[in-house]
């Protein structure tokens, strides 16, 4: 009896394990920063080369850090949603313009609007590596003390926002 049941039991265990595996996206890697301090960085501002954008700006209020580039299709896709967040003053958004050209990026903001409080220009991708960025767009939710609460890979939209971001923001006292 055991001889016939054992393979069946093994099969019954294996099926759900493999099914869970099927629902996961191998491109979505867990970020080692979640629950830890955001990486220290300082970049020259995209819009004003005399100004700096860096870690100190993130302290004091909950904010989003959005990694974008003009060559990134998903960034164009989410841009309207970021504009909405900015227009409704939902949360301050800081941009990291990753591996891009400054004129292209400035033209993008001029044509599509600028949802960012400030954008750092990371032309050589050095700061992107410090944030563990591997594919734009990536969006980090950072609390007032500079701790990373969440990271989203891929374009932001209302569905992702309501499902992943809004509950976390409310849990941590809301963005003001």
């Amino acid at each position: 009896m055991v001889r016939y049941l054992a393979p069946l039991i093994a099969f019954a265990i294996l099926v759900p394990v493999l099914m869970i595996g099927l629902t996961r996206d191998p491109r979505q890697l867990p970020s080692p920063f979640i629950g830890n301090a955001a990486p220290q960085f300082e970049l020259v501002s995209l819009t004003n080369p005399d100004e700096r954008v860096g870690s100190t700006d993130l302290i004091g209020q909950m904010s989003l850090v959005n990694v974008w580039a003009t060559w990134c299709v998903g960034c164009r896709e989410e841009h309207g949603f970021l504009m909405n967040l900015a227009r409704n003053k939902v949360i301050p958004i800081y941009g990291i313009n990753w591996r891009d050209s400054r004129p292209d990026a400035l033209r993008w903001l001029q044509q599509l609007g600028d949802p960012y409080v400030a954008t750092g220009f990371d032309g050589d991708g050095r700061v992107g590596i410090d944030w563990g960025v591997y594919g734009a767009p990536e969006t980090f939710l950072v609390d007032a003390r500079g701790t990373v609460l969440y990271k989203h890979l891929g374009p932001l939209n209302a569905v992702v926002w309501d499902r992943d971001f809004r509950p976390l923001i409310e849990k941590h006292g809301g963005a003001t």
Partner: protein
Amino acid sequence: MKIILALALLIVGVSSALAIDTGKAFDDPELQARYEKIIDEVRCLKCQNQTIKDSNAFLAGDLRREIRRMLDEGKDDDEIFEFLVARYGEFALYRPRASGKTLILWLAPVLLLFGGAVVLWRILKRRMAMPIDDIG
């Protein structure tokens, strides 16, 4: 015959022109050897089944540049791997370091091999016990 030779030469020429890592080699051959060994162990996160040695994605290029910089600064291999893991997680390494989180990865092959051996041994034992006539 000449055509074959020409084709062979063409392939050799083209393949070196397509070399992925276009950076300048280290002056110190020992450092160069370490560099090549390291980039062969690091996953390109953008193209997950390639190492950063094999990949021409710009992220792989950026990571190679950072590894060169760290080698120039005299960092040892562990510090370089730690740098990558702190930013991208153990997944960045083709041979993740043994720790609580990755233990299952290291133990699974041994356990599976052991399980297979037990099954095989039981089947063989049963067959050995059969009279010769019954086999086949």
